[in-house]
């Protein structure tokens, strides 16, 4: 092992056995001898070096294998092929409050919990004031843990875990603990650990945290390392892939009839019953439209008669952010907004209706919206 590395993963593969109705009793084991066993390849041929002092994020969608990789590093489970080596005292924050006993006080449970992480009594006693202060439990520390609220419980558990003082810290999506204030405290503690030269590996879905905290992001995609490097770039590519996958998924869902084709159209201007005067020369209209098909087009009608104005598209970040999850892959942030102008001379005095529709090529309507405006 290279002495600069904290974790070395070499040609590592992991598969899980999937047994349908696994028999746990002797009878079942004897009678149904391996009838339906399938293997699910979770990780394929992973090679990784994590250097000492690095803070690394593992990102990926659910089921991509990132949590499994973390568990393998912890040596809770073992690879089928290849090796994982670690150098230095390692602590995993996979589970908070492991080994808590409800009938004992918070203080006693600190001892139990910390001892599972392999700390000696002396080491625990040294950290006890820090742990108690960090958990913000005050006098409750000497009450039995069963009387705690779930927030207090998690705070205590997190304080123990974060104060264990290992060389390598493995963290699995647990920072969603407690209120805003406590979360911020956790992050600043993590930053402090990072700056003190600990090796930290985080699995998380919150990409802002990755950008903010990590030196490096590793994107696990379908059991393999897809990209490994600067967080900003890796996250960008990751989001692109999510968009692509989402698009394909929606297309499939539409084909199989599980999901409807749909769209949304919105008119920002004019507002309902807005008034215009002949000297305005033009009626300025703008809005935005989205759809979960590729070739949707916008159509404009005034008083049920289609018009063919010149359409200019604009960037709409606000809309993009709102609909990103649902429509990702179909959104081009620079093309979401539209703007047209209707010449005043084509309009008579009185009430008019502007309708905007989102059409498929065959003419079926995905979304529509209308407003009434008045020419004086």
């Amino acid at each position, binding site marked *: 092992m290279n002495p600069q590395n904290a974790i070395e993963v070499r040609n590592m593969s992991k598969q*899980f*056995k999937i047994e349908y109705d696994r028999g*746990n*009793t*002797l*009878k079942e*084991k004897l009678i149904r001898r391996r009838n339906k066993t399938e293997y699910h390849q979770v990780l394929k041929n992973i090679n990784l070096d994590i250097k000492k002092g690095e803070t690394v994020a593992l990102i990926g969608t659910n089921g991509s294998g990132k949590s499994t990789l973390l*568990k393998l590093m*912890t*040596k*809770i*489970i*073992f690879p089928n092929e290849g090796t994982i080596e670690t150098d230095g005292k*390692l602590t*995993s924050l*996979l*589970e908070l409050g*492991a*080994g808590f*006993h409800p*009938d*004992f006080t918070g203080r006693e449970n600190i*001892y*139990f919990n*910390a*001892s*599972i*992480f*392999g*700390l*000696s*009594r002396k080491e*625990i006693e040294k950290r006890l004031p820090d742990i108690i202060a960090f958990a913000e439990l005050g006098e409750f520390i000497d009450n039995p843990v069963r009387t705690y609220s779930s927030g207090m419980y998690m705070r205590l558990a997190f304080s123990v875990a974060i104060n264990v003082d290992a060389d390598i810290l493995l963290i699995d999506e647990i920072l969603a603990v407690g209120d805003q204030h406590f979360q911020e405290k956790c992050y600043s503690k993590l930053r402090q650990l990072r700056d003190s030269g600990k090796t930290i590996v985080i699995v998380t879905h919150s990409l802002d945290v990755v950008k903010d905290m990590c030196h490096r992001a590793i994107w696990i995609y379908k059991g393999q390392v897809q990209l490994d490097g600067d967080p900003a770039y890796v996250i960008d590519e990751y989001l692109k892939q999510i968009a692509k996958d989402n698009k394909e998924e929606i297309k499939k869902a539409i084909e199989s009839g599980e999901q409807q084709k749909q769209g949304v159209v919105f008119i920002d201007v004019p507002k309902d019953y807005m008034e215009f005067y002949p000297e305005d020369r033009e009626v300025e209209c703008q809005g935005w439209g989205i759809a979960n098909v590729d070739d949707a087009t916008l159509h404009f009608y005034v008083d049920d008669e289609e018009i063919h104005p010149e359409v200019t598209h604009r960037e709409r970040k606000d809309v993009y952010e709102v609909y990103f999850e649902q429509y990702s892959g179909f959104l081009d942030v620079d093309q979401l907004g539209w703007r047209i102008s209707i010449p005043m001379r084509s309009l008579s005095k009185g009430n008019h209706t502007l309708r905007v529709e989102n059409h498929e090529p065959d003419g079926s309507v995905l979304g529509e919206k209308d407003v009434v405006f008045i020419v004086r």
Partner: protein
Amino acid sequence: MSTFKEIYNYREMLKSNVKKDIRGKYKGSVLGILWSFLNPLLQVIVYWIIFPYLFRGATIPNYLCYLVTGIIPWNFFTNVVNLGTISIKSNAGIIKKVYFPREVLLISQVLSGLVNFFISCVIIVLFCIGTGAGVSVHILWLPLIALIQAAFSFGIILFLSAFEVYVQDVEYIVSFILNMAFYGTPILYSLELFKSAGTLYRLVSLNPLTKIINAYRDIFLYHVTPDLHSLLIVAILALILILIGYRVFKKLEKGFAEVL
């Protein structure tokens, strides 16, 4: 060697597990830790009343003390084996989430059994004094005998706890075998009764628990030096069990988190 070092690093976990076992077990009950005295005591009283009627041979001198010196070590053994067998399964929560040497769970089970047993020895001594058998310096052998018994139980649960994770019939088979073994060990009766029954006599006298319980009776009741030869055999047996059991345990341990 590295194994010992690793277990030594987790000594605080051992300690707190033992503490949790002993204090946590009776939390919420009015009599608390007294129950670990009361249980064997009540058991002894039941046998003491019933068995003289059933047994023609229950003419053992100082039968009450004879029972106490048999049942309390036996309870030590069954508790460790029963609880040890399920100790990996019942700690699935932490096994799946945290790394630690898994054998710590078994060792702490043996240790809390041992602590409990030493506390219960107070009862044995009280009975020895109360029934007129008295106490002698031979009691100094106690730690050695208890240690051999602990090692023997540890060897057994290394196998059983690992098997239990994969096949959960093990715990039921174990409790059945322990029930049988209770009668296969001279706890209620004296081995002399079987002298005429050739095979049965040999089987019971080969039982390692027979040798251990005889040793306890030697030091508590009869005030003689225990049969060191028999103890040595049990100690060697325990060592072999531990050596093989440890290998088996280490091999099966890799699947624990996935199977549980």
